[in-house]
């Protein structure tokens, strides 16, 4: 970490190349495991896909392969937590949420146990496997649970910082990341505090609030509009719950219009969370870049993002719409 060879201009984030967030997860898990002997990891037959083989090989006694039995894995993690362990229970996001909602609700959240649900391959960018595996409802499912913290990091480096913060935090966490290699741009100096968003780009005409893979695209949109004289504030809302209310209210106050961007259904995700804060505090025009109440399909990640309207151009379009509504 911290070896950013490419000089970034002040206030400007540049890509150091593409890396997968799941890679960041696997590397961070190993580092955290070295530092804290209470950390244990569980995986349901996807160890390589989640890059957990490093942890498994170095700490075979603290790694539990549960086989294809996610309900057992999550409840086991809760049982481990009752003996003082810090379990990171991991699978694909589709199996780590909907399939085990009841286990997470009762044995993890209601029981307020220190279990980290780690969910990879979220969203459309899982790609060719298609809609059965492309969960776009997980953030909504998890954010509805009392006591649950929901974290969606923007890139490889932030995934590593987020993993550390999650390990240090005591309580249930839903940690969502993905399969594809995406621009790695965030900086160690950004820090990572659960519940505190990060302003990546200043602007006073409109704010884009994004999470996950959409953060880099939001930055791209802001730079394009900068040349046209439109000031776009970009906020990396890496924690969906508890949401950073203050940052949202400030953005609404300062810029008067908000666009949200997420790789998730338009219902119940980041967009609805932001809209709820605005409706309760400071109503402003809000546009949402998200999947419009449909299931995904097989395809290459970038083709899917284009078809389902999750590109930089789609963010630009919603920004123009928000600006028009603001007038």
């Amino acid at each position: 970490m911290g070896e950013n060879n490419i000089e970034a201009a002040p206030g400007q984030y540049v890509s150091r190349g593409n890396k997968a967030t799941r890679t960041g997860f696997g590397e961070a898990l190993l580092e955290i495991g070295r530092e804290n002997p209470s950390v244990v990891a569980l995986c349901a037959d996807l160890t390589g896909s989640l890059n957990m083989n490093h942890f498994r090989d170095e700490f075979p006694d603290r790694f539990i392969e549960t086989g294809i039995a996610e309900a057992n894995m999550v409840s086991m993690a809760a049982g481990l937590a009752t003996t003082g362990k810090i379990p990171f229970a991991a699978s694909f996001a589709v199996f780590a949420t909907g399939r085990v909602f009841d286990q997470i609700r009762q044995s993890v959240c209601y029981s307020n146990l220190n279990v980290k649900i780690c969910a990879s391959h979220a969203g459309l960018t899982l790609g060719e496997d298609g809609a059965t595996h492309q969960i776009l409802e997980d953030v909504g499912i998890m954010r509805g649970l009392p006591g649950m913290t929901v974290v969606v990091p923007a890139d490889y480096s932030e995934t590593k910082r987020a993993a550390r913060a999650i390990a240090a935090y005591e309580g249930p966490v839903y940690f969502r990341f993905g399969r594809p290699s995406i621009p790695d741009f965030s900086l160690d100096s950004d820090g990572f505090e659960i519940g505190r968003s990060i302003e990546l780009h200043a602007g006073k005409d409109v704010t884009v609030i994004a999470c996950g893979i959409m953060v880099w695209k939001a930055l791209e949109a802001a730079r394009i509009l900068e040349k046209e004289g439109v000031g776009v504030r970009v906020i990396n809302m890496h924690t969906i719950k508890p949401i950073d209310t203050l940052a949202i209210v400030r953005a609404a106050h300062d810029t008067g219009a908000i666009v949200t961007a997420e790789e998730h259904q338009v219902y119940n995700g980041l967009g609805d969370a932001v809209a709820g804060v605005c409706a309760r505090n400071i109503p402003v025009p809000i546009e949402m870049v998200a999947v419009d109440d449909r299931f995904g399909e097989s395809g290459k990640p970038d083709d899917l993002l284009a078809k389902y309207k999750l590109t930089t151009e789609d963010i630009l379009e919603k920004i123009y719409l928000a600006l028009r509504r603001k007038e």
Partner: protein
Amino acid sequence: MAQDQKRYPAEKKGELLQLATLDDLKVMARQVRRDIVRMLALANSGHTGGSLGMADIFTALYFRVLNHRPHDFGDHHGQDLLYLSNGHIAPVWYSVLARSGYFPIAELATLRQINSYLQGHPTCESGLPGVRIASGSLGQGLSVAVGAAKGMKMDECDGRVFCLMGDGECQEGQIWEAAMSAAHFGLGNLIGIVDFNNQQIDGEVSGVMGIEPFADKWKSFGWDVYHCDGNDIEDFIATIGKIKAAGSSDRPSVVLAVTVMGKGVPFFEGTMPDNTNWHGKPPSKEDAAKALEILSETPYGDF
């Protein structure tokens, strides 16, 4: 956790009690049954049948079998751990927890009332001593116990992990995921106890969704299987003794404990003439009064 949840006050401890003889245990089991009937009648809701049926096993566990420290509940080192998977029989658990000193018996009067620590199904939300995890939605507890047994092994703790389940509950698929994993992980420190009363809400287990051949299922999943009369304290204690004596280091054990739902109050026992049972019904005031005549008072006194 609900943000306004009141925490159980750590200083509020129950009175420690140890019982010396088998007769003491039998009298205590009667007191536990009195507690159950009185709690449920006060609450006018709750699960009568399974609670009464398991009174003997719970009494034996907390006053003879378990190595436990009611006033030092939080530390899992050097203790046995118990998980109740079929959370609806919480009344019998609350009674023995209070009677063995986890919290004052006066708490028992609050079952199912608003702001009570004694929720309709058990929860650790308030930090109530004795309860390590919430249960109620069935099928999760054995997995939890598997995780705890793994945790105990990682810490090289020599305590055992007990998991209580219902027989109807074993219709849940997750029980068998857990059973498979317990054997795979070689959890000789795990003891399952199934309340084998052949009753569930909709009727007899054998009629609703048969689970036989039950013992063979556990055996084929890699468990050592023991049978006992779950309403005979002596037989139950002897059965746990056999498990400990066998000393199997890498095979989990399960006790199929045959009990009678509603045991101790004849008009709550087993299947009623109309094919219903007392799984989920509380006794009326009149029923409670009649039951308490049968379950005569004990030296331990009512809450």
